[in-house]
């Protein structure tokens, strides 16, 4: 017959194990029967603890996600060069390894979108761009430059616009984070990316980043200011 230690080890691994040998031991041993009852009470607590409330949600599938398109005309060409001519400098401190922070989440998102980083002078279709922007209640002024990529992306529980604007310094990624309010600007450098998070009062924040190819923090700050200035909030 099974000994107490073997029984308790087995029952602790699976308190609902219906094995015949375990059952026989339990029926024959009052102490192990009491032990099992105590274990099952605790098991009920574990089960209740694990059953955290979670939303069913209606936005189940990201069917709204837009694929990028390079078939459009050069709608945003005119003032691309001016992107680097902004005057505002968003100061801040370079943060290293901002793990689990908003910046880290932005950088992590980049790893899943490698196609977005192409250098190109072909703009995304205007209707596709508008579709991506309209849910966040904004549009871009033409001076924003060539928007070569536009996608609605799932980010920290929300669908957000993910854009790539072509500049003379290379592609710049912009994420419009209306659900992520910030108190102050923050610059970051992580995993080969340099960028800045900029608060937009009443509209959350913007994440602006580039692949690190020698672009200075001041240049990225200028680009971010230019992007910010190119946005027209419609609501």
């Amino acid at each position: 017959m099974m000994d107490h230690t073997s029984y308790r080890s087995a029952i602790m691994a699976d308190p609902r194990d219906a094995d015949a040998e375990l059952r026989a031991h339990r029926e024959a041993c009052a102490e192990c029967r009491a032990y099992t009852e105590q274990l099952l009470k605790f098991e009920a607590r574990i089960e209740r603890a694990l059953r955290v409330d979670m939303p069913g949600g209606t936005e189940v599938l990201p069917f709204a996600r837009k694929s990028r398109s390079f078939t459009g005309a050069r709608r945003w060409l005119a003032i691309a060069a001016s992107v680097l001519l902004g005057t505002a400098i968003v100061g801040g401190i370079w943060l290293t390894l901002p793990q689990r922070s908003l910046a880290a989440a932005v950088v992590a998102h980049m790893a899943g979108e490698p196609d977005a980083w192409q250098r190109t002078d072909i703009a995304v279709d205007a209707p596709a761009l508008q579709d991506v922007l309209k849910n966040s209640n904004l549009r871009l002024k033409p001076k924003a430059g060539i928007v070569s990529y536009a996608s609605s992306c799932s980010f920290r529980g929300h669908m957000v616009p993910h854009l790539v604007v072509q500049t003379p310094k290379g592609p710049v990624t912009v994420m419009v984070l209306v659900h992520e309010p910030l108190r102050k600007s923050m610059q970051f450098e992580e995993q080969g990316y340099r960028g800045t998070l900029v608060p937009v009062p009443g509209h959350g924040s913007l994440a602006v980043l580039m692949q690190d190819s020698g672009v200075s923090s001041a240049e990225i700050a200028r680009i971010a200011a230019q992007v910010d200035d190119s946005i027209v909030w419609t609501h």
Partner: protein
Amino acid sequence: MNDQVGGKQRRARFQALCQSLRPDLLRFAFWLSRDRALAEDVVQESMLRAWKAQDSLLNEAAAKPWLLTIVRREYARTFERKRFTTVDVDELIAKEEPTLAAAEEQDIADVRAAIMKLPDEYREPLVLQVLMGYSTAEIARELDLSGAAVLTRLYRARRQLRAACGEDTALDPQE
């Protein structure tokens, strides 16, 4: 036209399937990551992957384990991308305080906090067993472990939880 109708029906069917399973998928992702926002991202991305790979789901009755596997892999990918080197469990617990406090009783909140502190290798099989109803063999298959290794992890998970929650462990077997 028929293709369009078929596509719509297919999408609606898949949508309904995902919607019904979403709370469980979110719970699973939450207990993997211990982070509600990250869990939502992982599940959203998983559903996108599932939609693209739906032809590989041959039997709708097997949708739940199929989706759980996708969630698990997506979480692993996210984890690799983020390259977390350290996890401050107390910080995670503090962040999830509203979730923990939502428990009806304090002792359930205590068990939740204790589960959050379990090492990943103990927490994951426990969630699969208790919450998802997986058998030992199914957990072994999912985690690519032997049955004995799964039972050892489950045993250790409960032993740690019992100790952390102040249960009488005098009769607990020692390894």
